[in-house]
C-alpha cells in the first residue's frame, strides 16, 4: 500500500467535526481526547472524562457514570480496537488485557450516550483490518456505534451494514474497500473527508423573565417543584409565573404540597410565604407526589389538603428518602432500585419485595418530569449552579431528572466566575436560567 493514511491529529480533526456547539461529549482514548482538545472554548462543549471531570468541573465518578446512563451525554467518542458492520465494537486487543473479561473501560461510554462514534486505525501494523464482519476481540458494546472514523475513511452504520460516506484525500472507494474486513456499500454522496468544526455557538440559556421560561409548559405536565418545605430553596417567581400561565392538570412532584403558608415552616416571623397553594387554589394541580403533603397541624389544613378532602386531587405518598432516591434514579439512568425504607408498611403494598442479605427491601422506580422549576443562588451562563446552605436540598436532586430544568437565581454571572470546586449542579442539567426580579420577595 503506497497511499498515505491520515495522521492521528487529522483523524482527531475529523472526529471533532462531529461535535455540535453546546453538546455533551464523553471521550476516551488518545484519538478521542485529541479531538476534544481541538474544540475551542467558545463552542460551549462539555467534555466528560471517566476519571471524574466534566470540562473544568471535578465530579464524583458515580456522578460521571450517572450522567452517561441518564441520557445527558449526546455523544461518546471512543478509540476502539475493532468495529463490526452492525456497530458492535471491541475496545481492546485481547492479548493486552487477558482473562475472561479483560478491560471494561469503554462499556459505560458505549451503553449510555445517545450516539457513539468509534475512532480507530483502519488496519493494524500487519495489515489486518480493524473494520470487520465479526469481532475477534471481546465485545464492549452491542450495535451502538453509528459512525466509524478511521485514518482512511468515514462509515455510517446502517441497518444492513456499512455505508462508506467519506474518504481520506487521495483515496478511492475501491482502495478503502480493499483494506476493509466487511462488506461496504458506497454512498451516492461519497466525498472527501470534512475537517471543519460545525459552525455557530450554543443558544443562550438565559431567559428574560419567568413567563418566557415556562411559556411551553403544557397542560398535563409532570413538574418538579419545591425545595424542602419553607421559602428557602423555593422557586417562587417561577411558581407565580406558572400560576399566571395557568397550565392545568399538572402532576407536581415535591417534598411538600404546600405547607409554608399555613404553618410558617422555615418562614421568618411575620411573613407569609408563597407556596404550592397558589397552584392548588387556581385549580391547576391534579396530583401530588410528596413525602410531607399536608399541614403538620390538623387545625390549619393547607389548600392541598382541603382539595384532597374534596376529592379534587390525587396523592401519591412517598417517604422522603425514597423520593430523593427516585429522583436521583430518574436522572442517573437507574430504572429501578431496592430500598429497605417502607418495607412491611402501607408503602410496600403492591410493590415487589426481595430479601437481600437477610433484610427485606422493596422495589422503587426512577421518577422523571417534563419540567423542573428549581431555585439556586447563582448561575453562570453555562447553567452551572451554586446554592446557599440548606436550600440545596431537593433542587440539586431534581435538576438532572427533568427534560427541561428551569432555574431561578439571585444572580447570573459569566463562565469562569464560579469556583469549579463550589459548583453543585453542572450546567449540563440546566436548560433555562431566569433571574429573580429585584424587589420580588417570595412572600405574600
Amino acid at each position: 500500500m503506497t497511499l498515505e493514511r491520515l495522521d492521528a491529529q487529522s483523524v482527531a480533526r475529523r472526529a471533532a467535526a462531529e461535535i455540535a456547539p453546546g453538546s455533551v461529549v464523553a471521550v476516551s482514548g488518545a484519538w478521542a481526547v485529541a479531538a476534544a482538545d481541538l474544540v475551542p472554548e467558545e463552542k460551549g462543549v462539555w467534555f466528560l472524562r471517566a476519571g471524574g471531570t466534566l470540562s473544568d468541573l471535578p465530579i464524583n465518578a458515580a456522578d460521571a457514570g450517572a450522567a452517561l446512563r441518564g441520557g445527558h451525554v449526546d455523544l461518546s467518542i471512543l478509540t476502539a480496537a475493532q468495529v463490526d458492520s452492525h456497530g458492535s465494537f471491541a475496545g481492546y486487543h485481547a492479548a493486552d488485557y487477558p482473562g475472561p473479561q479483560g478491560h471494561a473501560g469503554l462499556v459505560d461510554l458505549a451503553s449510555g450516550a445517545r450516539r457513539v462514534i468509534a475512532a480507530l486505525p483502519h488496519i493494524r501494523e500487519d495489515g489486518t483490518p480493524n473494520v470487520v464482519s465479526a469481532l475477534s476481540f471481546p465485545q464492549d458494546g452491542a450495535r451502538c456505534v453509528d459512525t466509524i472514523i478511521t485514518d482512511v475513511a468515514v462509515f455510517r452504520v446502517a441497518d444492513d451494514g456499512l455505508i462508506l460516506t467519506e474518504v481520506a484525500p487521495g483515496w478511492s472507494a475501491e482502495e478503502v474497500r480493499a483494506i476493509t474486513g466487511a462488506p461496504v456499500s458506497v454512498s451516492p454522496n461519497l466525498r472527501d473527508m470534512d475537517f471543519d468544526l460545525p459552525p455557530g455557538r450554543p443558544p443562550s440559556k438565559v431567559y428574560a423573565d419567568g413567563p418566557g421560561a415556562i411559556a411551553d409548559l403544557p397542560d398535563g405536565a409532570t413538574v418538579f417543584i419545591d425545595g424542602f418545605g419553607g421559602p428557602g430553596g423555593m422557586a417562587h417567581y417561577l411558581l407565580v409565573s406558572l400560576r399566571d400561565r395557568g397550565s392545568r392538570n399538572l402532576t407536581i412532584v415535591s417534598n411538600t404540597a404546600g405547607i409554608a403558608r399555613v404553618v410558617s415552616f422555615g418562614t421568618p416571623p411575620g411573613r407569609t410565604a408563597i407556596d404550592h397553594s397558589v397552584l392548588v387554589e387556581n385549580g391547576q394541580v391534579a396530583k401530588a407526589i410528596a413525602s410531607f403533603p399536608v399541614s403538620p397541624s390538623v387545625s390549619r389544613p393547607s389548600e392541598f389538603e382541603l382539595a384532597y378532602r374534596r376529592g379534587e386531587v390525587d396523592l401519591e405518598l412517598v417517604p422522603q428518602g425514597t423520593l430523593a432516591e427516585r429522583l436521583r434514579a430518574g436522572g442517573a439512568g437507574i430504572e429501578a432500585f431496592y430500598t429497605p425504607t417502607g418495607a412491611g408498611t402501607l408503602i410496600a403494598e403492591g410493590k415487589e419485595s426481595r430479601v437481600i442479605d437477610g433484610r427485606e427491601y422493596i422495589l422503587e422506580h426512577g421518577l422523571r418530569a417534563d419540567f423542573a422549576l428549581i431555585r439556586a443562588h447563582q448561575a453562570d451562563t453555562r447553567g452551572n449552579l451554586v446554592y446557599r446552605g440548606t436550600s440545596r436540598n431537593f433542587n440539586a436532586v431534581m435538576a438532572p431528572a427533568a427534560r427541561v430544568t428551569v432555574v431561578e437565581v439571585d444572580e447570573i454571572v459569566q463562565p469562569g466566575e464560579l469556583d469549579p470546586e463550589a459548583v453543585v449542579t453542572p450546567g449540563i442539567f440546566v436548560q433555562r436560567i431566569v433571574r429573580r426580579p429585584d424587589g420580588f420577595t417570595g412572600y405574600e
Partner: protein
Amino acid sequence: MAFSKLYDSAQAAVADIPDGATILVGGVSGVNAPEGLLSALADRGVRDLTCVCDSNYYGAEALHRLVSAGCVSRIISPAPFTGRSDDPVHELWRAGTMTVDVVPWGTLAERMRSAGAGIGGVFLPVGIGTRFAEGRETRMVNGVECVFEAPLRGDFALIRAACADGVGNLAYEGPQRGWNSAVVSAARVAIAEVDQVVEPGGIDPELVITPGIFVNRIVQSSSVPVG
C-alpha cells in the same frame, strides 16, 4: 477533646486492617491515590486483601507495591491489568494466585454508591450484549433491558483528599474528587490521607464534598513517609 478522628501516622491509621479485608482505594490510575496509607499497609504485610480500585495503569506504584508484596489476592476494577509486560497483577494472575473481577467503572462506582446509601441493588442498562451481562440477572424495566447490580461494600476505604477539618469534612482539589469521593462512603471505616488539616470551620460548608459523617480517620500526608 475526648474524641478525635485525627491519627498520628499512616501506620496507626491502618494498624487494624486484617488479613482478608476488602479495601476500597481512591485515585485514578495511581494519580491522587492514598500512597502513604497503601505503603503503610504494604509494610505491615497484610495478606489476602480484596482491592477495589479504578485502574491499574502506569503510575499506580503504591498499588503495585501492595500487589508485589503479596498482600492482594483479588482485584475488582474496570481495568485490573496495565497491558504491559511488567504488570505485577498480570504475573500473579497467570500464576493463579490472583483473582480478577472486571466491572465497568460507572457500574462499579454505582455499586459502591448503593452500599454507602443503603440501597439493596440497582437495575442498570449497562453492558447489555457484552460479557459483562452474561450469566447475570437481567430484566426489562420500563421497556429498558437492565442488569441487576448488587451493592459492593468495603471494610476499609483508603482515600486521598486535599483538606480535612477536625470533624472529618473533606475538600478535594480538582480531579482528586473523582474516585476518592466515590469510594469513601461504601466502607465500614474510611481513612483519609490529606495534605492539610484545619480547625472545624476552616472549610466553607458549601465547599465540603465529603461530609465528616463518612470519614472515620484522618492522617496528614506530611506525617507519611513516602517510599
